[in-house]
């Protein structure tokens, strides 16, 4: 029995075991960190979402120039309409009476110039007092007509093809009517 106790005694600790002094401090610090309240609403998802929205806005925004035009209120369609208006002008010329004097002829032959000119200048031309009819020979008349045609050539180049064809047709008609009147 004594031997049994001796063995037990032999197996008991013979020295003191001491944990390091920092162990307690470390445990307490870690415990305090665990207690510290953490942020319940995480910020990073919101920050990421804001960045993504920023990029989307940057890529989908119209260019600066387009924004400027829209702010000034310049509809592009309205401009197109204004451009087509002058083309309608020659129709009024068609309504002129067939019995024309020489001055009228000169005026009408010069109308292609008036098409490109502003409305005011056209009105001035119309308001100008009609010249008195002067008797001219056939040769002079033909010369005047040819001169008018040659004067128009640079302008003809400027017109687009559709208008040119129409003008040529009108002039041809006038020439025929003049020829008929001379013959009569």
């Amino acid at each position, binding site marked *: 029995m004594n031997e049994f106790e001796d063995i037990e005694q032999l197996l008991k600790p013979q020295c003191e075991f001491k*944990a390091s002094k920092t162990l307690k401090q470390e445990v307490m610090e870690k415990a305090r960190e665990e207690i510290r309240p953490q942020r319940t609403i995480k910020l990073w998802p919101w920050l990421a979402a804001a960045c993504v929205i920023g990029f989307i806005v940057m890529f989908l925004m119209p260019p600066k120039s387009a924004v400027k035009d829209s702010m000034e209120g310049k509809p592009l369609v309205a401009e197109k309409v204004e451009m087509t208006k002058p083309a309608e002008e020659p129709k009024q010329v068609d309504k002129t009476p067939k019995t024309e004097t020489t001055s009228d002829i000169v005026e009408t032959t010069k109308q292609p110039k008036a098409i490109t000119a502003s409305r005011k200048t056209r009105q001035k031309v119309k308001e100008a007092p009609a010249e008195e009819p002067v008797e001219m020979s056939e040769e002079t008349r033909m010369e005047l007509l040819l001169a008018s045609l040659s004067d128009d050539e640079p302008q003809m180049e400027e017109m687009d093809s559709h208008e040119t064809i129409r003008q040529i047709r009108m002039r041809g008609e006038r020439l025929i009517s003049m020829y008929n009147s001379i013959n009569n």
Partner: protein
Amino acid sequence: MREETDKLLKELERIVAERQDWLFRFAYMRIGIREDAEDLVQEVLLSVFRRLREKTGIDSVEQYVIRSISNACTDYFRRKPLRVVVLDKAKEVAVSESDRQIHEEYVRINRLLESLPKEQQEIVRLKCYDELTFKQIAELQDIPEATAKSRYRYAIGHLQQMIKKKGDEI
């Protein structure tokens, strides 16, 4: 809320003050490396603190601490099997001057117990070195108390014979 946390911290402080040396000895006598043993002690104490915070109800803090450190040591050997030092080479392991005494003690006990089966080794350590009762040992090992007692008797008897043999040889 503030009072509650202060109370918890005070409770932890008390447990640390009372049990840290015992826990360190328990871990060191199985591992033999101070740093690792202290890490395990820290883990165990923090797990106790978490349990106290969750109020999951530790019936016996004492029993919970013993079981935790025992499980932590088992896990340690599962995680780091390569760090287990062969007993013959244990003396060669670099130990600081202050730890020399406890390391010699570790070697001495392990030399005495090395001839025993592992289950008996653990019961002898728990009874003689860690000063647990047979009831506590039985609970910890999940065995009947009688089995714990008989294993202990066999172990001591075996050690007696071994020491006698060595005495006769000398």
